[in-house]
């Protein structure tokens, strides 16, 4: 293992200034970072532990905004009664992720920045533009069942694996980022970046910037929301496909809809075409499946992941029907 320096930040300011140095890495729960370091994938020479900084773990309703402190633990947030009742999609995306032990340690902020599960990225050996820019992409002629349909490039076809991020994409979400130069808020849709020429870059976060909160605009659609995760194993596995759907309903008629899909894209992926296919319709299974198909109309399949177009459409359909049934 590469030698590294570990320091525990005493204040946010200290963390921000230390994190601005090269080869520095923020550690929150450490469930992703330590894994990456063990595989020599993080390039971290200085680990700055912010896990214990005070004040960053709160979840509160701040006027029309749900504010999730970046250090709130997945397990704790998944148990909040207010959230369970009003935003089941968010709670389910947390409950269906990882394992209880990992959720006990993992934070909401760190969750957004987890890295792809592409086996070629993880193996530390194969050609991978994400790990070694310019080296190539082994997935292009290798195992690609797990790979993405959206937001890919000829340099990288890996998926963003997170469930929480996918669910957030179905809401009006933004990310609060703090650095020595102040605090800013960016739209969640702009926080992660689809792959272009440089798939090593996955978010807009710059050295020295720390995610301090995730902000979700309160919405009545939260009550009629759900997160459906389809996976090979019934627990403790990443999504093959997933979908979050949030609805506003007038009787059985959809008046507003938000749809996002997971396991199929390079970043948390909103599906506006599916939303359009739902709005104004009396929601039934056929309408739901049409919306699912709309979500995948622009999908770009590889050799072995084409089934995700069909499965993904069905996943959206199931989520829409479950969301409708929630109250």
């Amino acid at each position, binding site marked *: 293992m590469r030698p590294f320096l570990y320091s525990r930040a005493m204040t946010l300011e200290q963390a921000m200034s230390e994190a601005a140095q090269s080869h520095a890495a923020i550690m929150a729960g450490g469930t992703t970072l330590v894994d990456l370091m063990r595989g020599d994938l993080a390039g971290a020479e200085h680990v700055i532990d912010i896990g214990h900084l005070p004040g960053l773990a709160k979840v509160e309703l701040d006027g029309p905004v749900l504010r999730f402190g970046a250090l709130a633990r997945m397990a704790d947030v998944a148990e909040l009664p207010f959230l369970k009742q009003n935003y089941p999609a968010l709670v389910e995306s947390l409950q269906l992720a990882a394992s209880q032990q990992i959720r006990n340690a993992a934070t909401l902020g760190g969750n957004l920045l987890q890295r792809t599960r592409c086996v070629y990225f*993880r193996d530390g*050996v*194969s050609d991978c533009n994400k790990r070694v820019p310019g080296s190539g992409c082994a997935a292009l002629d290798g*195992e690609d069942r797990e790979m993405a349909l959206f937001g890919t490039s000829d340099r990288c076809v890996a998926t963003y694996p997170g469930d929480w991020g996918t669910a957030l994409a179905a809401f009006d979400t933004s990310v609060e980022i703090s650095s020595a130069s102040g605090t800013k808020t960016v739209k969640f849709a702009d926080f992660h970046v689809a792959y272009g020429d440089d798939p090593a870059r996955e978010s807009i976060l710059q050295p020295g910037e720390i995610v301090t909160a995730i902000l979700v605009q309160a919405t009545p659609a939260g009550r009629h929301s759900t997160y459906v995760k389809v996976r*090979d*194993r019934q627990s403790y596995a990443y999504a093959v496909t997933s979908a979050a759907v949030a609805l506003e309903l007038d009787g059985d008629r959809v008046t507003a809809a938000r749809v996002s899909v997971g396991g199929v894209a390079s970043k948390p992926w909103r599906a506006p075409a599916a939303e359009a296919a739902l709005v104004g319709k009396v929601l039934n299974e056929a309408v739901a499946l049409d919306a699912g198909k709309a979500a995948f109309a622009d999908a770009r399949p590889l050799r072995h992941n084409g089934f995700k177009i069909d*499965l993904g459409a069905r996943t959206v359909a199931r989520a829409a029907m479950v969301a409708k049934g929630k109250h």
Partner: protein
Amino acid sequence: MDINMGNGGIGEPVVRRDAMAKALGLAQYAADFPHENTAYAALTLSKVARGRISRLDTAAAEAVAGVRLVLTHRSLNESLGDETFVMKGGHMQSSFLPLSSDEIHYAGQIVSLTIADTQEAAEEAARLVAIDYTTEPASASIDDAGLTEEPADSGIDVGDAEAAFAAAEVKVDATYLTPAQHHNPIELYAAAAAWRDGKLLINLPSQWVMGTRAGLAKVFGIPVEDVQVESPYVGGAFGAKASILPHVVLVAMAARRLGRPVKLVVPREAGFTVGSFRPAARSRVRLAATREGKLTAVMHDEVGQSAVIDHVAFPGMEATSKMYASPNIRMRSATVATDVNTPGFMRAPAEAPSFFGFESAMDELAVSLGIDPVELRIMNEPARDPVSGLPWSSRSLVECYRRGAALFGWSARNAKPGSMVAADGTLIGYGCATATYPSAMAPSSARVRLAADGSCVVYCAAHDVGTGAYTVLGQVAADVLGVPDELVTVEMGHSRHPSGPVSGGSITTGSAGSAVHMAARAVRERLFATVAGGQDRTKMTLADRHVVLPDGSRRAISDIIGGLPGGVIEEQADWKPTDMDDKTMRQGLAGGMAFAGPVGETHVSFSFGAQFAEVRIDPLLRTIRVARMVGVFACGRIINPRTARSNLMGGMIWGASSALLEQSQVDRARGRFANTDLASYHFAANADIGEVVVEMLDEHDSVVNAIGAKAVGEVGIVGVPAAIANAVYHATGVRVRKTPILMEDLL
């Protein structure tokens, strides 16, 4: 049979002797043993699958503070004894030893071992070993173009199966695929070696301490007595920890060079290529029957993945040819050599892959005939082994099916595919399949010591790989000597003990158990002889720590033994299967591979089981869940129903995992295994397994061995993948002829 039913004796569900030690974390596994002044090792693995090392630069690695040795093909530069591959009579997992040359035969081959004062420094140095390769194209899949099939043996022929098949009224001809799989025991491969005065002590998780000892003695050119192998606990093995893996030799080598103990724990991803694996296989099954359902031809053509560096084959035909009565049988097996680490034994190595195809084909035949699949099997039950014509030592498969069908509620099955649907639309499928496993035996020694206080110690160099052998072997002794279970201690997993067999092929209970039985009886004989005083010894019994004499009087064991010099009675026995000659027995006891059975001179001995599965399939998303399984088994005498049940249940769970999840994905472009970690190599989680019901029939087999125990360890996995595939067909009408069965197969 003269086995008493005693306190904690044979047939009782005694709780595992090692349970508390394991639960409390007190059990010491190989990597837990402290050797003073240990140096730590780390591996560097080949990035390419085939070629040569063209440049090797270890300067940066050697410069890491605390690094003591960088072992590469250049610095090893020493030929190591002439020990051979396990399939050629030796003990090595492969005939190729990494670092013996600059050649690369498979991806993930060990290309250096770095040793340092700390684990961190060793790992850092391993990362800095700089290697360039010249590469050649490689194949890690049997489906790659340009590979040829080589016949693996002469096959089995009874009658004229081709002709019978051609003439048949109803037939099935289908091909089934099973993938490569890796054992992934939770306890990683490890080795800790220490040399003292030219003698080697090695701690490693082992299923074969005697074989490892014999092999390492040969590798290092030292007398067998100068090697000790210690492996008291094994955290899962499944066949992976029997033969000597290459890192073991390298670690011992490094320890000798440094004059200092060296320890290596092989990381999970490295285990995929440092150890062995279950090779991919393809089964073509042809079955023919009369309209009434009588089989007229059974044909099975198997193709298995082998390695360029070693020829290995695990055909299942010895078992599949014996399943059903058919006048015409034709079995063939072939292999395809690929650029991989040598495949090896993995739980039911021959049976698990071959039965997926064979028992799926039986289901397809049942569908074609319109006959219930349970009834089809019962109709074709053979009275004798259809190949050798010999009688079975015992075979209760029909009883297993009848009991299993009742337990499962098979009669509620509507045979029409897709006809059983739950209220919420979930598709329900019922499937069944046969399981079998040969009951082979190996010679074993054991020593039993009885002390005046009634305490009893059993010594045997067998192994408890998590299966319950500590408990079961103690029960055999307790039973013969009439001592309560709490007073029994069992010492195993060390080569200083009397020789025990390899823990492979489901032989431990039958073989080591027979040796313990023999040694315990010898102790009892001495006890009786001591008190005999003219009374008839054959009329004496043992109960409650007393000898009961023919006249009804009782003598306390404590008095009898207390009066003896040394205060103990201790006897060692060397047991061998009836059909085995003395020479083979001696080879076996010296750490060689010496098996007898399952086909003996007078009988054929297999364990059998009938397995049932219910799957539930989401009608939209097509996810498959195993709601419940039932397995009814006939394995002869069950020494301990608790541990036997747990074994069989574990096998069934693995079978479900194999049916729906497990596969080592092959990156064919680069000739390597792709999913080499537990995040992407999926096996069942608790949530994947519903109810599992296991029953063992009360079967009496007076032929198989001294204690009447047949194979338990592996039979549980064998039929489940086919039972699940058959249930998937029943639920959906879709026949999937490969494992794992994934949701996309049903879209």
